């Protein structure tokens, strides 16, 4: 009976992802090139923010993917804990560095955007602070994977960390909102101010978001393949040593 779970079999997963990867990667490349070129070069300057607002085409998709990567890791961790599919655990492990990179891109592009906008590279705005905390959670997750030798124990412990971390990430998000509102409603620094009401800005943004999603999927597929092959290699080496 064919179902999604058949891809828990590493060989089936490798076969399918090898077939699918060129299309996903190609789609990602097309969307990214079209979206970024369109957004950076073919949209008019914003009347208020000038041309610096165009960094939004990198910033917003990266920020979206940073959070979605963590959600994907959470789901994959739950699948590992419940159904013990190694492919799922390895997919979560594979997604972490991509999530880290997306978070860094979001933070750095945000800083580059912030300098001309607010006159500062950094502000302890709730959103920025939440992203910094998310970055720390990612680092801890990856560090735990590296630190533990037994792959199954590592998968289990990082899954538990992912789940507890998700609860605390949401809690921190609201705590930080609370922390920064205080007496001063300094929220003139709202990053989701809809400058993009008109389609002129919005459509390229959608294309860029699609591009980043496809890029994430392609990279996760590729890295999961690598992780699976690495495990197979280790098993072969172990068998060699015992023979």
């Amino acid at each position, binding site marked *: 009976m064919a179902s999604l779970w058949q891809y828990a079999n590493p060989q089936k997963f490798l076969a399918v992802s090898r077939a699918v990867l060129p299309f996903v990667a190609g789609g990602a490349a097309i969307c990214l090139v079209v979206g970024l070129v369109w957004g950076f070069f073919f949209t008019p300057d914003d009347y208020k923010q000038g041309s610096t607002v165009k960094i939004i085409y990198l910033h917003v998709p990266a920020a979206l993917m940073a959070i979605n990567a963590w959600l994907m890791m959470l789901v994959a961790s739950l699948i590992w804990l419940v159904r013990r599919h190694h492919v799922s655990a390895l997919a979560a492990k594979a997604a972490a560095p991509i999530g880290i990179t997306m978070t860094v891109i979001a933070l750095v592009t945000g800083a580059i955007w912030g300098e001309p906008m607010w006159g500062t590279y950094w502000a302890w705005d709730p959103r920025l602070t939440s992203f910094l905390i998310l970055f720390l959670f990612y680092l801890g997750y990856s560090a*735990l994977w590296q*630190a*533990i030798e037994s792959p199954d*124990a590592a998968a289990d*412990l990082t899954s538990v960390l992912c789940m*507890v*971390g998700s609860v605390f990430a949401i809690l921190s998000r609201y705590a930080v909102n*609370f922390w920064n509102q205080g007496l001063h409603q300094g929220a003139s620094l709202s990053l989701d101010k809809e400058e993009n009401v008109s389609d002129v800005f919005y459509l390229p943004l959608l294309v860029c978001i699609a591009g980043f999603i496809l890029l994430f999927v392609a990279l996760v597929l590729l890295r999961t393949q690598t992780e699976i092959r690495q495990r197979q290699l280790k098993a072969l080496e172990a068998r060699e040593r015992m023979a």
Partner: protein
Amino acid sequence: MIALFWRDMRLAMRAGGGFGLGLSFFLILTVLVPFGVGPQSEILSVIAPGILWVGALLACLLSLDRIFALDFEDGSLDLLATAPIPLEGVVAMKAAAHWVTTGLPLVIAAPVLGVLLHLEGGAVRWLILGLIIGTPALSMIGAFGAGLTVGLKRGGLLMSLLVLPLYVPTLIFGAEVVKRGALGMEVQGVILILTAITLAVWALLPFAAAAALRINLR
């Protein structure tokens, strides 16, 4: 389970137990801050509550790897895991002993050290209240982090990386209690949220920590 609590307390109080370690670290940190920031009392009194809270966090962190690692190394943790008491209960009792030997002394020391940092008189009671409510959460969150890294040789730094981001909500609301209380603002909501975090952590994290310990004990 109570016997386990008293055992851990006795072990912590003995010579090699590191009872004074957290307090000493707290003191040293409080002494170092004016060297770094400058001795003007206006500046110090503004940052005093924050420094004391961060110092409490770090001092808690220092003694956390003692919770499970020592028992793990000599095999007592295996015995505790197979004992007739639930492993979640073991975690809770160890975290409780950690709080009494580390968190509670910090709460008592905080106003004293606050004098060094020119902590405002009005802020002292809010600091104590926030610390009393918040430090148990620190102990339990730390127990979870210790459970994750119990098998590792040099897991201390990794544990800090895992645990400190989890401390952020407690730190935020604890510092808010002091800030708002000192200004005379409405503080009840913040105290309730801080209490909620502590209670939720104590209700739920023992299960996560016990799961982590079982994984490491395999």
